[in-house]
């Protein structure tokens, strides 16, 4: 191929991915801020959330950042942020829009939402919005469930790549590098698909203050689970939540023999 032809082809491919609509849906969860030292309620029924600072789940922030970078690179054409939960999740959506999402959808409910319920709500929104990719955090730092992305992929019948540390979208395919035990794995899958983000995918930016002001003007739609005909009733019951065991004081051993003896007979690790 001559250089002129190559140039033409390059132009074509550039134009072609401009013209194809590529929508990314990013679910964002409002969780207890990672700096907060959480306290278990006295009755062991859960974690005390009264007057606790909440913010966007850090893995979701990485997801929003990735989606926005894909848009800035001209790969994606629209980024839609979705949050499921109480009215205050609007703030989480505004944060996503301040980072660069184009609009937000709140599925508003005061009910306790478990991963399956969220996955069903997201499925209903995917059916409606027809995104090309859903990028979600690999897990939320509150319940650490690590289920929603996988469940959504299953419900949609879409391929999935979890724990992504690199994402590239081109020609109807996603190439995703995953962090696995002892190394990296690179997958290629057809779109539409679900990707979940790991910590090293990117370093999210600070939403700039002017963009936070502008996010106020971006569209935010609110729906209820019933509007999507989804039953969000919990399928699991929490029986008990307890604080991690307190570390007990250490002992100073006299010599190696005593150490070995204690490791053998008290700690029972050797």
């Amino acid at each position: 191929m001559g250089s002129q032809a190559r140039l033409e082809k390059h132009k074509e491919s550039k134009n072609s991915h401009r013209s194809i609509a590529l929508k990314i849906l990013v679910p964002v969860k409002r969780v207890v801020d990672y700096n907060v030292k959480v306290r278990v309620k006295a009755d062991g029924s859960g974690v005390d959330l009264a007057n606790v600072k909440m913010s966007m789940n850090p893995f979701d922030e990485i997801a929003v950042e990735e989606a926005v970078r894909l848009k800035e690179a001209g790969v994606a054409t629209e980024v839609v942020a979705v949050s499921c939960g109480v009215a205050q999740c609007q703030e989480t959506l505004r944060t996503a829009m301040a980072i660069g999402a184009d609009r937000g959808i709140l599925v508003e409910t005061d009910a306790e939402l478990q991963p399956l319920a969220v996955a069903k709500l997201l499925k209903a929104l995917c059916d409606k919005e027809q995104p090309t990719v859903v990028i979600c955090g690999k897990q939320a730092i509150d319940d650490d469930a690590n289920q929603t992305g996988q469940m959504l992929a299953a419900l949609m019948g879409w391929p999935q790549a979890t724990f992504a540390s690199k994402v590239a979208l081109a020609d109807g395919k996603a190439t995703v590098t995953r962090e696995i035990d002892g190394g990296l794995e690179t997958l290629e899958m057809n779109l539409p698909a679900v990707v979940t983000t790991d910590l090293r995918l990117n370093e999210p930016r600070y939403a700039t203050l002017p963009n936070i002001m502008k996010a106020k003007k971006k569209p935010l739609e609110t729906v209820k689970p019933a509007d999507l005909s989804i039953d969000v009733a919990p399928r699991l019951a929490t029986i008990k939540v307890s604080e991690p065991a307190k570390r007990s004081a250490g002992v100073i051993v006299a010599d190696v023999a005593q150490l070995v003896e204690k490791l053998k007979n008290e700690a029972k690790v050797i």
Partner: protein
Amino acid sequence: MIRDQETLNVLLDTITRFVRERLVPNEALVAEKDRIPDELVAEMKELGLFGLSIPEEHGGMGLTMEEEVLATFEIGHASPCFRSLFATNNGIGGQGIVIDGTAAQKAHYLPRLVTGEIIGSFALTEPDSGSDAASLRTTAVREGDSYVLNGTKRYITNAPEAGIFTVMARTDPSRKGADGISAFIVERGTPGLSLGAPDEKMGHKGSHTCDVIFEDCRVPAANLIGEREGIGFKTAMKVLDKGRINIAAISVGVAERMLEDALRYACERKQFGKPIAEFQLVQAMLADSKAELYAARCMVIDAARKRDEGRDVGTEASCAKMFASEMCGRVADRAVQIFGGAGYLSEYGIERFYRDVRLFRLFEGTTQIQQLVIARNMIRAHNG
């Protein structure tokens, strides 16, 4: 006045996080080098900190006074030298133009103050005129289409970095007081403008002041703020009313930080077999600090709300500035006391705050000047 609570929450969260993740970790370095690293300055500009209170039509965020003080509380959780760098653009170095500038002056300068492309300074104080600001001697003589300035300004915050100076100078030598004073925008690089060496200060390392010297410095008449002579002192006082609420707010923010540090230390440090926080004499220091801090915070928010309502807040601004800065000094002193010997060592950072906050009782009107303002307003109101 809070225009949109949700947006404000996101804004404050973002500032809090930036303070915690970017500013606090750099405090010691900035103090040691007496300089904020260029990359960090760039990040502060990128975040939008230089345009907080400049109106939206000029690219800023147009925060109301109430929104601005809430932001300042958060910003105060880091070393106050960081705030100094962008505070003049939002405050004394930019507000003269915002409040009394002509449309052309606003359009020309404000967008560049918003981005931090230029730093604004406020030059009122002189070697022989501090508290008695209206006695200033710098002159501005009209010659054709320009004014020729002569005089020296002292202790001017951000002068070494400034791109523009709001300069109060006497245009009418026959009037000795405030009426003879006008305010000018003078650009860096104007022939006849020079700077003294940076001052060696007790604290606020990383923020700089120096003399600003005018020797036959020719300034276009179009740079007379409001294009009217004789209103410059009033402009300066309006700027300072707002500035005083902001100094009160930063005093609250830094006091909160010091009290948090002192509380953490008191809960961790053990003597006589238990955390020192369990001793009632230490608790008294914590509790007194907390109560005073709460009072100051309420005063600041109240003054800010009243200013947003368009009321004259001369008295409230002075009350808040006086009480909050004095409170901050007391909290600093107690925080050092709670730290014990560690409070005297640089490593723990608390002595740095102790030195930094001493300034709050001095600039933008000393405590004594606030007392005079408050009492004068009271007596004037009584006499009708």
